[in-house]
Structures are given as C-alpha cells and as structure tokens.
C-alpha cells in the first residue's frame, strides 16, 4: 500500500502508541484486501462495547489505547451490556456494571460519543450519499451502504477504532464502485402484511443471496423502521452488507439488473417463520428494539400498552437509544410504558446484554434478535408488535 509521508510517520510512531497500532492494523488490512491507499472517512461507528463480549482482555486493550488515543472524526458507539443509568432495574450485577463502566470510561477518554446505539443514523451520525465511513455493527453497516448510499466495509471493533484514531480507512471492498455491483436479482412475490414480515424477508433473502449483493424488486413501500429491521435480518442471515431495492433505495435505478434471478414466494416467508420460531407457549421475556426502537416505534408500543399490565412472570423491555427515550419522556410515552410494567433498556439490547440463563423464551419483532437470543439458550418467537404486546400482557404466545 502507498502511504503519504505523514501516514508513514504515523506508522513509525510519531503520534504515539494508539496511532502506531492503528496504522499497523489499517496497513495490514489494506495489504490483505489489496487496497492501494488510505481514504478519509466522515465518521466511525465502534462496536465491541459490551463487557460481556470484551472481557478483561478487551478492557485492558481499550485502556492501553485510551492512554494516548484520541479520535480524529465523529465517532459513535454501539450498545453496551447494560443501561448505563438504570442497570439495576434490568437485573445487572454490581460487578458487571463496574467493569462495563470502566469500558465506557476508556471510550470517553478517547473522545468517542457514548451514544450506545446500533442506530447511529438516528442520533446524529448520518453520512451523506456516497460518503466514505468506517462503521462496525452489521445492521448499521447495511443501512449506511444500502438505505443511505454511503460506503463502508463491515468493520470489526478494533479496525473501526483504528480508523477513528487515524481518520482514514484502507480503500478496498465496498468503498470501490466495482465491488458495489449487485450480483443476484431477488424478485419478491410475497405480500408483507405485518412488521415482522420484514425480518422474515431478510431471512429468506439472506439465505438465497448468501455472500452476495441482492437487487430486490417487487417491494412497493418500505418505511424507515421496516428498512432498519430488514437490514439487520438480511445481513445476519447471510447476505453482504449492501442491497438495492428498486424504487426505495438510492442507486437502484441506475444499476444493471443481474441476470442470475431467484424468487421469494409466500412459502419462503412462512418457512422463515418456521425456522426462526420454536415450539413454545410460555413467554418470560419480551424485547422490542433490535435494531433500537425509533421514537415512532416507541409511540406505537405506548399506544398498544396503554391501560394494560405486563404479566407478573414476564419482563417487557423496550431497547432504544437514550436520545429516543428522552423524546419519549417528554411526550409521555415512557410513563405509559412504565406504568404498564414495561422497562426501558437504553444503551443496550438483547444481543449484547449478559442474559444467558436468565430467560427461557423470548418474544420479539426482530429476526436478528432471535438469532442472538438462541445463542443465549432462549426459545424464540417472532411476530408483530401486537402479538409481542399480547405475549407481554398474558405471558403466553397465542398464535
């Protein structure tokens, strides 16, 4: 890879340990993937925040970097393993909270915004069309590439941090036009009638377009929340973190429709539900917000939960960003949800909180949430928001 004089000096250690390590990482990745140079990035999203996943080794590494590492561009953070303010209410242990706070302190020292959300694009980290960024968090990467038309590879935690300390990333993969060409045409013939169908569609397309860039036709309408859910699902279940959706996402009109074609029928959607859903009736955990709930989704939850009561042996969590919760506080949604016995899980989510062994069966609107909860040994049910609220209120899955 060709480095400028300035970059070479950074690699040689002129700006200290964090920048030197970062340059070593960026140069090695650039060499591995055939990048010729580094390019400037507009922003960074850093994953690998939960102490549950980092452990003491990760914490130690972050502390090492925090000694002299300061971010050069707008940098936001993925969810942590707990609500940073209200962790006790979510049943998080004192020891865990202490370690998690140390992780957060290290990130703060680096100059990172402690946004703790997987939806950075909803809280002020919104790239423009065509802008190069270095993001981790697969659902956000897919949203940035596909819905916004920004350009990012699927970074890991350390490579995203490296990009933040240098302000650049190696130019390869999805940063280049030639690697953003769709390679499979997915014709959707199925009707999508409820919100969770978008997760099911993501599952079906992820499987059919494994490691490919799908060009999707047959979708008439999709809002922000539907797209956010679809992004999380399609990449979790196998596609590359970029798709085109005709009439919906930027660039779809100008790219050539791939010859290789697969179809998604109603039966594929049913099959996705069959694969995601386990045989289970008793639900002890209902969690909505994977990816994090938008303010619109919180409003819908409050409307459905108004005047109802969450079942005694069931926990109901609304996972969202702190900024969305602040809007919900002002509008009175928080009060409605909490009065019904629901809890807000800000800064965290079901995929990264230490939940192993705590719950037996999850109900959620999210296909991605089901994937990660199975790793926590939970049985899973995916359905509409109405079905999830019903499960929270009755403690049973009823359809």
């Amino acid at each position: 890879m060709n480095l400028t004089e300035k970059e070479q000096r950074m690699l040689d250690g002129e700006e200290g340990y964090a920048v030197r390590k970062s340059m070593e990482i960026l140069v090695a990745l650039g060499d591995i993937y055939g990048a010729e140079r580094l390019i400037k990035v507009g922003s960074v999203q850093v994953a690998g925040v939960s102490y549950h996943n980092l452990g003491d080794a990760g914490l130690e590494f972050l502390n090492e970097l925090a000694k002299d590492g300061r971010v050069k561009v707008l940098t936001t953070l993925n969810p942590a393993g707990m609500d940073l303010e209200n962790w006790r209410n979510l049943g998080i242990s004192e020891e865990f909270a202490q370690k998690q706070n140390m992780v957060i302190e290290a990130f703060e020292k680096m100059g990172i915004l402690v946004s703790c959300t997987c939806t950075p694009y909803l809280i002020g980290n919104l790239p423009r069309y065509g802008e190069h960024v270095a993001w981790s968090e697969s659902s956000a990467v897919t949203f940035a590439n596909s819905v916004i038309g920004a350009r990012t590879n699927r970074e890991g935690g350390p490579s995203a941090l490296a990009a933040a300390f240098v302000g650049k990333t190696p130019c390869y993969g999805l940063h280049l036009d030639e690697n953003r060409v769709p390679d499979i045409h997915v014709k959707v013939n199925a009707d999508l009638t409820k919100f969770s169908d978008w997760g099911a569609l993501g599952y079906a397309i992820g499987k059919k377009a494994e490691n490919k860039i799908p060009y999707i036709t047959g979708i008439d309408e999709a809002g922000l929340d539907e797209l956010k859910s679809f992004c999380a699902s399609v990449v979790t279940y196998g596609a590359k973190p970029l798709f085109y959706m005709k009439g919906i996402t930027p660039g779809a009109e100008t790219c050539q429709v791939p010859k290789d074609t697969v179809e998604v029928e109603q039966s594929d959607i049913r099959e996705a539900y069959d694969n995601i859903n386990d045989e289970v009736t008793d639900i002890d955990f209902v969690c909505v917000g994977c990816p994090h709930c938008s303010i619109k989704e919180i409003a819908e939850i409050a409307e459905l939960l108004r005047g109802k009561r969450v079942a005694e042996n069931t926990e109901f969590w609304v996972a969202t960003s702190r900024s969305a919760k602040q809007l919900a506080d002002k509008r009175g949604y928080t009060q409605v949800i909490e009065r019904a016995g629901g809890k807000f899980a800000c800064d965290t989510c079901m995929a990264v909180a230490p939940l192993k062994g705590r719950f037996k069966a999850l109900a959620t609107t999210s296909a991605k949430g089901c994937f990660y909860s199975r790793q926590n040994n939970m049985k899973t049910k995916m359905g509409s928001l109405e079905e999830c609220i019903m499960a929270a209120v009755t403690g049973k899955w009823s359809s």
Partner: protein
Amino acid sequence: MEQLKGRVIYKGKGEGEALTTSMPISFYGGVDPNTGEVIEKGHELQGKRVKGKILVFPTGKGSTVGSYTLYRMKKNGTAPAGIINKECETIVAVGAIISEIPCIDKVDIARIKTGDIVRIEDGTVTLVQD
C-alpha cells in the same frame, strides 16, 4: 533447511514446534483463552494446546471478538509463538497485531507438518528440523 516465503502480517521472530490443521480456526468460542486449548467441537485440533506453538492453519473464521481473545491469550501466556496462514483475514490479522504475535500468510502450509520445528522471521518460514 527448507525455506518458505510469505507475506508479513505482523513482524517479529517466533520459533517453536508446529501445530497444523487444514481447518479454519475461530478464536472466540473455539479456543479457551485461559488454557490455550482448542475447544471447538469436531475441530481437528480439539483438545490440543496452542501455547508456545507455531500455529499453522488456512484462515480465521467466526466473530470479530476473536481478535481480543488472542490478546487475552497473549496476556495469559497461552498464545501461540507465531501464526502461519494460507490467507490471513481481519480477525487473525488484527489479533496478531494488537497482541504482537509474529504472523505471516501466503505460505504453502501443506509443507509444514505438526511436530516440525519452525522459525518465522519477517517474511520467511524456516523448517529448522522436520
């Protein structure tokens, strides 16, 4: 002494007994960082310890958290003395760099057998004794 050429992922010297596999390795969940033992079910190296070995495998796989697992192994003294890959990917490359484990790839790994004494130095693998 036979020499094999490769590409430097992380510089430095490492020498030890080779532990080789034709299967990809996931460090997160696949290797116990406290003991350095491969614990992935059904893996060729299941039950083997990588500590102090020159670990030879085609490529990495699994969660990106695996980079931190390598770092933790280095701190615990259970890390390999060096890594040789056919094609290095992000997880192993980043793990080797942050843990400062000598690592090279683009090597014809079929030439190296478990038990060979191997030295890595910059871009060269030397089979000291096979």
